[in-house]
């Protein structure tokens, strides 16, 4: 899990002196303002919102899909969808980042599963699922304070919790697939994912 080059990280951090706290309130407020303006048809605001959150959207889509050109295609669809439904964004339902990440992850996972279903119908390609065990991490991952904070939190999970979250979220598996990949009962997989996410929520101090 420890894939951060600390030297690289420090170098990057010194360039970002203005960022004092990760996912700072001001950034969330700015995203909310931009999203509300986008919802009223403001394309300039949407362009700014893109700059703010495209790395998160593209990053998670790419992580799940792995293939860069597919990731680009799905990310584009996600952004157009976000634009189209921006008038329906409801701040009380979550931060702009949560809203966008939810849609981006859902679309990436839908793409993976529709392709899986397609392949499963094709006997020649049975067992491809195991390929998903390999967790490719791009060299170009942006080392940010979020990255560091989340990796510190992930490091404090048990190894089996971390594995379950990685297989589920970063690799787009259902808890049933996680159970089968780890050869554990489905109930155990479900509990492990739940315990891991509760721990992360508490470590990352996420509360509404």
């Amino acid at each position, binding site marked *: 899990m420890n894939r951060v080059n600390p030297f690289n990280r420090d170098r990057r951090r010194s360039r970002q002196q203005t960022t004092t706290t990760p996912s700072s309130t001001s950034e969330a407020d700015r995203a909310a303002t931009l999203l509300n303006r986008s919802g009223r048809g403001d*394309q300039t605001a949407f362009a700014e919102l893109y700059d703010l959150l*495209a790395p998160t959207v593209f990053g998670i889509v790419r*992580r799940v899909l792995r293939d860069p050109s597919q990731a680009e295609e799905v990310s584009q669809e996600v952004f157009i969808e976000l634009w*189209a439904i921006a008038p329906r964004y409801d701040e009380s339902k*979550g931060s702009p980042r949560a809203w966008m990440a939810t849609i981006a992850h859902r679309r990436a996972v839908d793409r993976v599963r529709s392709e899986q279903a397609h392949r499963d119908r094709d006997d020649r390609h049975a067992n491809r699922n195991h390929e998903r065990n390999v967790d490719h991490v791009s060299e170009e*991952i942006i080392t940010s304070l979020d990255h560091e904070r989340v990796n510190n939190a992930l490091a404090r999970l048990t190894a089996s919790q971390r594995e379950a979250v990685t297989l589920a*979220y970063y690799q787009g598996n*259902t808890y049933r697939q996680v159970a089968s990949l780890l050869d554990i009962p489905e109930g155990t997989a479900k509990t492990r994912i739940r315990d891991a996410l509760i721990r992360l929520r508490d470590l990352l101090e996420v509360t*509404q």
Partner: protein
Amino acid sequence: MNQDHHLAAAYALDALTPDERQRYEAHYPTCEICAAEVSDFRETAALLAAAASELPPPSLKAQVLAEVGTTRQIPPLVPEPVADLAERRRRNVPRPVVLATAAAAIVALAIGFVSLRDTTRNTTVDDLLAADDTIITQLDGGNGTVSVAWSASRDQVAVLGTGLTQPPPEQTYELWLLTETGAEPAALFTPARGAISAVFDVADIDSTGWGITVEPAGGSPQPTTPILYAGTL
């Protein structure tokens, strides 16, 4: 339902099976504890996403902004028409209100994630929905919602759907006119981002209902896969 209370984490990570996801999406908004958990876990998942941040290729921004310029946004949420629609159905109101019902059906569909980008085509959908003899049939089965609006005088149908699963590459959805003796091909369509809103010309035959299957690109003369969505006229 008790067991569903523990699904918030798996749901927020998109780790439920489609059936469970659908069931949980019906449950959690009605359960205070689950709704709060989903909200927290989504913020947590978003941090996991942020930790995977990666700069997209610069070309992506240009492509997105170009498409934004030609993509219509859905109107802000107005929940009333849906209740209105249900109410009208219950009271089984006569003809003149059916037109309003057709318009309300569009609003109801739009509450899903619908992107309406082709204004010309949407005018045609509106025209069809406003025709005197249009019959709207909601089809059952599969993911999402799909309805067929059929006008016998125009020999046209509008297919309106949202939340549909994208057919695999090289495949398409095919709409069938179901008859006493089998099925006749009616239309081929591929949703964009799970949504479809399009008008097709159909044959003038006595149909008993509608069916939708997934077929190889280009369509089939007869269904080659089980019917995914069906509705009776």
